[in-house]
């Protein structure tokens, strides 16, 4: 485990930068009450204070005089929570469906793939908006909405990998030895598709953060929570004069998603068994 971590960090500067970004965001999310004691919904100062003008509100205030720094720090909680929940839920659903389709093939595969196409031809953001609009904007509903639209891409990836592995000699060997399907699937096939699936977690998490932001921007987020998306939404009206109100949360989203993507790349290198041979 420690060796793996060391190899991951040595795999290149990108992975290191990515993990540092994620650790900072994670630290902000966990330590939010300590790092930013102001409630992000409280009015703490004059409105429209530019960043750097007032030391008590380092990143300035919005049009209601709410602390942007607090918003960013507390918003990290929501973003990470939704990102990781959606990433993990989507990946698990996609993993199970994709592995079953790829391993059993035939009509199971055909059915699953036609259903996944049904979801893929729908604009995913619109579908998520519809789900959240109907079911309410709690975090679990948002995660559900993202998972419903996100699972097909994971399932397709896993299915393709499973196909490749299923025809491999070691799966044939397991069949010759008379192992049950469940043993072959869980002991021989799944461990070998896990690597790309783990990488998918970070990719889906990145897009989930973007989706949540889009929902919040459109006013479909939870009004009692300050998120990066809702901050951008709020700053939209004064974009021409007080552009920092959108730029700062925008940068937070950009950097976090970048961090996730860099970590995903690093994991891909780490989990690829062929690279392990070389290392």
């Amino acid at each position, binding site marked *: 485990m420690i060796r793996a971590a060391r190899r991951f960090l040595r795999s290149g500067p990108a992975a290191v930068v990515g993990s540092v970004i994620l650790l900072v965001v994670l630290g902000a999310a966990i330590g939010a009450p300590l790092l930013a004691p102001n409630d992000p919904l409280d009015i703490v100062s004059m409105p429209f204070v530019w960043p750097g003008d007032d030391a008590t509100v380092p990143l300035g205030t919005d049009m209601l005089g709410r602390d942007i720094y607090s918003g960013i720090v507390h918003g990290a909680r929501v973003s990470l929570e939704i990102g990781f929940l959606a990433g993990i839920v989507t990946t698990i659903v996609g993993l199970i469906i994709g592995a079953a389709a790829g391993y059993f093939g035939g009509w199971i595969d055909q059915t699953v793939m036609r259903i996944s196409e049904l979801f893929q031809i729908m604009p995913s953001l619109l579908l998520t908006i519809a789900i959240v609009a109907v079911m309410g904007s709690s975090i679990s509903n948002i995660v559900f909405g993202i998972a419903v639209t996100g699972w097909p891409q994971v399932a397709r990836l896993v299915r393709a990998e499973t196909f490749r592995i299923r025809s491999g*000699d*070691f799966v044939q*060997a397991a*069949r010759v*030895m008379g192992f049950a399907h469940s043993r072959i699937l869980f*002991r021989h096939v799944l461990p*070998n598709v896990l690597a790309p699936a783990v990488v998918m977690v970070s990719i889906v998490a990145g897009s989930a953060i973007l989706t949540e932001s889009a929902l919040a921007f459109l006013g479909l987020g939870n009004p009692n929570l300050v998120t990066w998306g809702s901050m951008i939404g709020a700053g939209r009206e004064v974009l021409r004069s007080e552009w920092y109100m959108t730029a700062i949360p925008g940068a937070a989203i950009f950097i976090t998603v970048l961090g996730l993507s860099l970590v995903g790349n690093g994991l891909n290198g780490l989990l690829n068994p062929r690279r392990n041979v070389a290392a």
Partner: protein
Amino acid sequence: MTFSWNTASLAVDASTDAAPGIVHAAHEVAPSKSVLDVQGLTTAFRAAGGWRDVVKGIGFSVGENETVAIVGESGSGKSVTALSVMRLLDGSSSRSAGKILLQGKDLLSLSERRMQQIRGNDVAMIFQEPMSTLNPVLSIGAQIGEALLLHRNLSRDAIKAETLRLLDRVRIPSARQRFDEYPHQLSGGMRQRVVIAMALACQPKLLIADEPTTALDVTIQAEILDLVAEVQRDIRSSVLFITHDMGVVAEIADRTIVMLDGRIVEHGRTAELFKAPQHVYTRRLLAAVPRLGSMEGLQRPARFPTVDPITGALGPTAEVVDTVAAAHPPLLEVRNLVMRFRSAGGLLTKAQGRVHAVENVSFIVNAGETLALVGESGCGKSTTGRSIVGLAKPNAGQVLIEGTDVLAGPAAATRPLRNQIQMIFQDPYGSLNPRMNVGDAIAEPIIVHRHARKSEARDEAVELLRLVGLSPDMAARYPHEFSGGQRQRVCIARALALKPRLIIADEAVSALDVSIKAQVVNLLLDLQESLKTAFLFISHDIAVVERVSHRIAVMYRGEIVEIGPRSAVLGNPQHPYTRQLLAAVPNPDPDLRRAHSLRAPSEPVSTVRPLDYVPPERAYRQVAPDHFVHAEPDETALAA
């Protein structure tokens, strides 16, 4: 010009068990005028933490009209040498030093632009895999024409005429119709002919062939070797032939260079090198090469002779003790096995024909006996093996293990009987789960089927590792930490875990290097002797088959055309196909070189038949006790 030996190449690595006193063995002096002259070539690849030398200061030359073979096992640096000469290695991850003189020009000092003019024009290359060498979306005429267009300033009509001439030159029948065909419409041998035609387009001074026949069947291989020899004489070019196959070397090369671990260990005239190999590695290599006919006079399978690692002296050929125990019912009996697939039928298109992959195949395997199933790709030998273990479901026929039909009845009921038969696959890299350590992999079937406790199963796995010649502490390692030969040993240990009485070895040694192949074959024979295991040995390599088998069944177009004791089938072949197969096997003895014949290429016969095809009734003619042959040769039988 003489051989230029870099000092680095003179020092033989102490770890390569050089015989004392024998450093380098140069049998002769190179011809006076050389086309290619390589001096002190060192090629390195970027590896973790620096550069790793793969080719270590080698020097050799290729004279005019001469065929020089570089022979070596995987990792010897032979292919890297070829790619270095062509400068086809990625510049960012590799570097070459030394001199590569092509007709006096140093290729390593040329600009990439100059090099592009030289490739194809002065030096051409033929690769191993003809399907991936050709562009699948261009017709073969267009691809050959492209080579002409780039390097020779010809008009459209002239290009077409020249392309047709080249297709004729490589003996592709009805070239005019083939002109517009695409690579997937051609057989492997035809594709390799197209690749050769492309290489010939500009009449290069030097032709580099990197394992050009390795992916081909043995009869096609013989044709391609003949073609290369003929073409070389014709356009008066030199050939640098990279191969792992000593038989091919003996067949084609004027001079031979033996490479080991990036260095040249021996070079010389092919005839002399084969007759009196100096370096211990060459001796070991030659001892490990299976020779068809080397088993004459022996009744039972025999191990490959061992080579003394210090002196290089050959040990005796150890014949296996008699293990065959015929009984009624026999261990395995296959009766009238039939396996057909629909072909070329899509969702909306009707199937045009049926593949008769296995047609009415019957044979028995006795306890402790090895039956070899030989034939070329697509003859149905693997499908037969796969249906016996249940990986493929036959359309008709019976598979009886100790008299019980395991195809009939519920799978659970026949499981204990089925466990009597295990399988080893061709690819040692693919047949182990990369994420499971070797000890767990071997213990798994013991836990699942024999309900052993985990600790007991682990102990047994360690015992099995010892049995196949691996050390017990390797149990904790993962497959990627093993070499190809070691992995195949692990697969054998795993197959033995259920104490099977028959092991189906599907091309189990085909992917291994010669010396490793000999070791694994010897291991299989040891196991047969100590455990009385029977083998169904599926292989296209008749020279290996001769060594391991008690009986041989020859398959052709899904049917067994000849079956009998090994000495009878090989010594007195009756079916024309068996004869053709035996004649095509390259002999690793330059004195017995086949006369290069200018045969028309043979198209592999297809097993696709029309939907209404009814296979004819077959009768077998008895030649000798236990030796049977198809009474009436097939209607498309070869005119041999």
